[in-house]
């Protein structure tokens, strides 16, 4: 069963509604209600999926989600239009805190697929999982970097570029492509650099990140999210557990709200596009 809170046109749930009208439930502009109803649908044996903007899922329904996780319900949340992906809607709609908010809820998994092929794999894995799962889906168009068929192993990050381990770029979602662009440039300049797609923010691939933390001179996290509590925060927690470890540069949004402009303008202004990320890394090259 799929639940919509009157954003079907934006999330493309209208396509699902047309094909599977009997498995589509419209609850109106009432997101907390949607999660409550989804919790109830589990009792009839369904695996409900609630789809809305990142802000209106994790942001608006946090206590309902926490309760569903506490009850061990296999609800699936698909959060779309994360961070700057929602562009002109501005500060009220731009969500940079969802990974932090979702990650702290016990027994809840967080997936961040990086392209359309991986999104499909992530959704299939999420649907098969007995746990409450949040899948963060980008709106900003990115090239396809994966090939079908693709596995989406929970808790395992993916090394998507391996040209040495001096500099390791860890990215999630739509920022994986940006990280690849940046790494290709650095590699062309003679740097030994790798890119890791942290496709599941939770559970995190602690083993790989710990290992990289002993190899790299600098680890860089790149995310369309606040540098507090998301990918950068999670990686910092892992690195700091070792007595000595790589230096860490966290790239993302800082301690301020978004503003209204196109996604491209916002990524550029906040140094999250290729040249902005490159500049931030260059300032820290060792």
């Amino acid at each position, binding site marked *: 069963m799929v639940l919509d*809170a*009157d*954003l*079907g*046109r934006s999330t493309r749930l209208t396509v699902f509604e047309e094909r599977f009208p009997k498995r589509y439930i*419209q*609850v*109106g*502009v*009432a997101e*907390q*209600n949607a999660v409550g109803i989804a919790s109830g649908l589990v009792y009839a044996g369904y695996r409900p999926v609630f789809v809305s903007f990142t*802000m*209106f899922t994790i942001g*608006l329904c946090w206590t309902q989600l926490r309760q569903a996780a506490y009850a061990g319900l296999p609800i699936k949340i698909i959060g779309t239009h994360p961070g700057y992906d929602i562009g*002109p*809607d*501005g*500060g*009220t*709609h731009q969500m940079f805190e969802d990974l932090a908010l979702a990650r702290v809820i016990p027994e809840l998994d967080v997936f961040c697929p990086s392209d359309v092929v991986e999104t499909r794999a992530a959704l299939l894995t999420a649907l098969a999982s007995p746990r409450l799962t949040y899948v963060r889906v980008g709106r900003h168009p990115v090239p396809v970097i994966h090939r079908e068929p693709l596995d989406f192993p929970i808790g395992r990050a993916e090394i998507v570029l391996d040209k040495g381990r001096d500099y390791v770029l860890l990215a999630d979602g739509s920022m994986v492509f940006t990280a690849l662009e940046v790494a290709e440039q650095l590699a062309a300049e003679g740097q030994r650099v790798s890119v890791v797609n942290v496709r599941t923010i939770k559970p995190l691939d602690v083993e790989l990140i710990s290992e990289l933390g002993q190899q790299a001179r600098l680890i860089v996290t790149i995310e369309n999210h606040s540098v507090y509590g998301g990918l950068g925060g999670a990686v910092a927690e892992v690195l700091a557990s070792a007595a000595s470890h790589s230096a860490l540069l966290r790239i993302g949004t800082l301690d301020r709200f978004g*503003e*209204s*402009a*196109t996604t491209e*303008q916002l990524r550029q*202004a906040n140094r999250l596009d290729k040249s902005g990320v490159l500049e931030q890394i260059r300032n820290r090259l060792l």
Partner: protein
Amino acid sequence: MTLIPVPSTGVSPAVNGSGRTPAHPALDDATHRLLRERSLRVREHVLRTAAGGGSFVGAALSCVDLLVYLYTCFLRVDPADPDAPDRDYLFLSKGHAVPALYGVLAEIGLLAPQRLRRHLHTDDVIYWHPNPQVPGVEFYSGSLGHLLPVAVGVALDCRLAGNPNRVVVMVGDGELNEGSNWEALLVAAAYRLDNLTVVVDRNGFQANLPTEALIPLEPLEAKFRAFGCETARVSGHDFAALAFTFHRLPLRGGAPSVVIADTVRGRGVPSLEARADRWFVKAKPDEIESWLRELRQTNQIGER
């Protein structure tokens, strides 16, 4: 631009809940003409925001007449001192309709009209959703169901402080799906907040479907009454009817007032009216010019 003084909306009745304001004066011809002229100009402003990145034109056009009426005849807001502590408050909860508010603020002299040409520019704050950095905008909105509770808080604050400010919050009909509105009304009724008026822009649509086809809201008056409010239902495009209704506020002493204003999405441009697919509109300059011509043809001032 000056506000039309409205002598009958005295301060004390709303505050102590002890009585109604006197019978309203008829809307005189000059005021009626001013309202229509302003509405026409505000609609022109709204249509122009469809250029570039677009805006929520349909949702804005439905509440133009309401906002023009409120800012011209009802709200005590001084364009020379928009932050005056004794001002009345207007909260736009259906934040995506903000082009209508920008247009009104421009017409009453709070917002330089040339700033409207900077809609969505990165070097200004004329956004898709309200930003209080714009003079006259009271609060952020855009995430639906958020400002009725805020308005209840402000009304409660005014009540506790013994201040005469009146609080008006405009909500969309679709956003009444959000439970937060009804939680707020329970509190408003419990505290007998008759300094609070909820205006429902009842244009019959939410996002891309008619409200009654999605999550039916009717009978809406009965719902508000059951929550302890007093209601009036009025055409949101009829200034004389609006004057009659707003001069009666509070509709009942000791109760929050709810004015359900029946409106038309896209009102003023027949080819945009009452269309499910004209909530958000992005248009090319020649398309906008054609709507502007249509608007002027169908809204000629001087006949009614």
